[in-house]
């Protein structure tokens, strides 16, 4: 099962991997959320949210990804944690509308306005490639805080304009009126290369940090639209020793994260 063999001793003797940096960046996206339902879609987001709950934000409410709120913080895909609540799909929609939720979703495409597509590639009437469908993205983005996770940053993902707007960026939300813009909150985009928000001019995508070993030029080259790049772009922080131990020995001892973000 294990793709790579992470350290099983102290966690400090092995090199920090890109996946570890991504997990810490995702955790940071949830650190100021307070007591809300953190809803990660996919493996690295689940790892990052659990890391945040064990470090920066113990108030986070987390689930098993199915129908249970978990009181503890079990390893990825473990069963049998203490249950603190019931969150079947129908109640997820209630929490979306209630607003105390931060979802981190995938994105097959993201554009410079922070719109996201998980519906289809090409013309909607007859797509070149049919994807999942819009799922909850339209509702998430006008109701609760929404972030995106992109494990393979490329110009095919970061495009000038998405083919189908599933998740609504701030510009589109404002154009749709107060009801759409009021709770629109595109918080972070975390990729395997860096961290972004929509704080550029006219709410466009802006580079916040590049991961260790990645240059600003790398990110610009791998982005299919004109990215807003501040004068000084810091390097994304490395996880602390405590975080590395939590990731390697507790949350993901099997190294499942390397399937999503391989080590160099």
């Amino acid at each position, binding site marked *: 099962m294990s793709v790579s063999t992470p350290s099983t001793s102290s966690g400090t003797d092995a090199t920090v991997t890109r996946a570890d940096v991504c997990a810490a960046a995702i955790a940071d996206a949830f650190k100021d959320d307070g007591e809300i339902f953190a809803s990660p879609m996919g493996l690295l987001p689940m790892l990052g949210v659990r890391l945040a709950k064990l470090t920066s934000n113990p108030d986070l409410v987390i689930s098993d990804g*199915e*129908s*249970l709120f978990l009181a503890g913080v079990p390893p990825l895909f473990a069963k049998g944690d203490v249950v603190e609540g019931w969150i*079947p*799909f*129908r109640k997820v*929609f209630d929490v*979306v*509308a209630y607003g105390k939720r931060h979802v981190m979703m995938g994105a097959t495409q993201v554009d410079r306005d922070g719109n996201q597509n998980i*519906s*289809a590639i090409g013309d*909607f*009437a*007859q*797509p*070149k*490639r*049919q*994807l*999942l*469908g*819009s*799922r*909850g*993205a*339209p*509702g998430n*983005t*006008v*109701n609760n805080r929404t972030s995106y996770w992109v494990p393979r940053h490329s110009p095919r993902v970061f495009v000038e304009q998405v083919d*189908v*707007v*599933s*998740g*609504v960026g701030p510009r*589109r*939300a404002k*154009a*749709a*009126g*107060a*009801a*759409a813009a009021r*709770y*629109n909150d595109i918080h972070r985009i975390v990729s395997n290369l860096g961290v972004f928000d929509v704080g550029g001019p006219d709410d466009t995508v802006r580079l916040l940090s590049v991961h260790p070993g990645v240059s600003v030029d790398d990110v610009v080259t791998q982005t299919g639209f004109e990215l807003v790049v501040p004068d000084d772009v810091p390097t994304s922080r490395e996880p602390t020793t405590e975080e590395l131990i939590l990731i390697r020995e507790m949350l993901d001892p099997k190294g499942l994260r390397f399937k999503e973000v391989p080590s160099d």
Partner: protein
Amino acid sequence: MSRKPRDKRMRIDEVVGTLESGMTVGIGGWGPRRKPMALVRALYRSDLTDLTVVSWGGADVGLLARAGKIRKLVYAFVSLDSIPLEPNFQRARQSKSIAEIVELDEGMFQTGLRAAAHRLPFLPMRAGLGSDVLVNNPWIKTVTSPYDDREELVAVPSLELDVAFVHLNRADEHGNASYLGPDPYFDDLFCMAAKRAYVSVEQVTDTAGLTVDSPVQRLLLSRMMVEGVVETPNGAHFTTCTPDYERDEKFQKAYAAAAGGSDDDWQAFHDRFLAGDEASYQAAVRAFHEEQA
């Protein structure tokens, strides 16, 4: 003269025999979970056409699309979870073989069912605003709040169904039914949004049996919502029916490989598993697993 409510037990083919081409069929469950697959397989091999299918889509949508049964599809996603994209659905979309496509947000989908269940023409919500759901479905309108805020919200149209198919764990012969797994999904809403609802179950028990070892809160469906009850053990296969069984991942893989393969691959899968009735399907699945063992 019996003093009990009526006995609604039916056979699968009797249920499908009550349907007509052109009807709107809601299919309960969620993606690859607790789908009324025995009823879906019966639809697949029926001569019904031009159906409008309303579903949180999984292989139910894939199978019916592959059989050319769907004229109009209403969905928010179609997925097999452990296999994210549904090959038969992708194929249908990419070849434009479904005449009318209504892709909604998930919350809109629930709200549309709730509107139908409440016999309302629409219900307001935020979801959809600013997204291409409203661009690709220009018939969906917005409504302005009549109060001081004057907010413009989506008027989610009611998703009225002619028929609903759902699969639960237990029912009595009258149509009271319980789910024993972790999630009710939206099966009660499907039933209430439909003119007639049919529930298939793993086991029909007497009424007292429904609550003898499980709390009353698990009774999701009341008989007043249900037209017919079908006992179909393993009837949700290959989707989950927790705790009776989990998803048959091996079989799902075989399904997806056939669906994503050549026409011959699909024909072979069809001939082996889908050409006969439900009993022969279940026998073929048993043989499939004996081969794999």
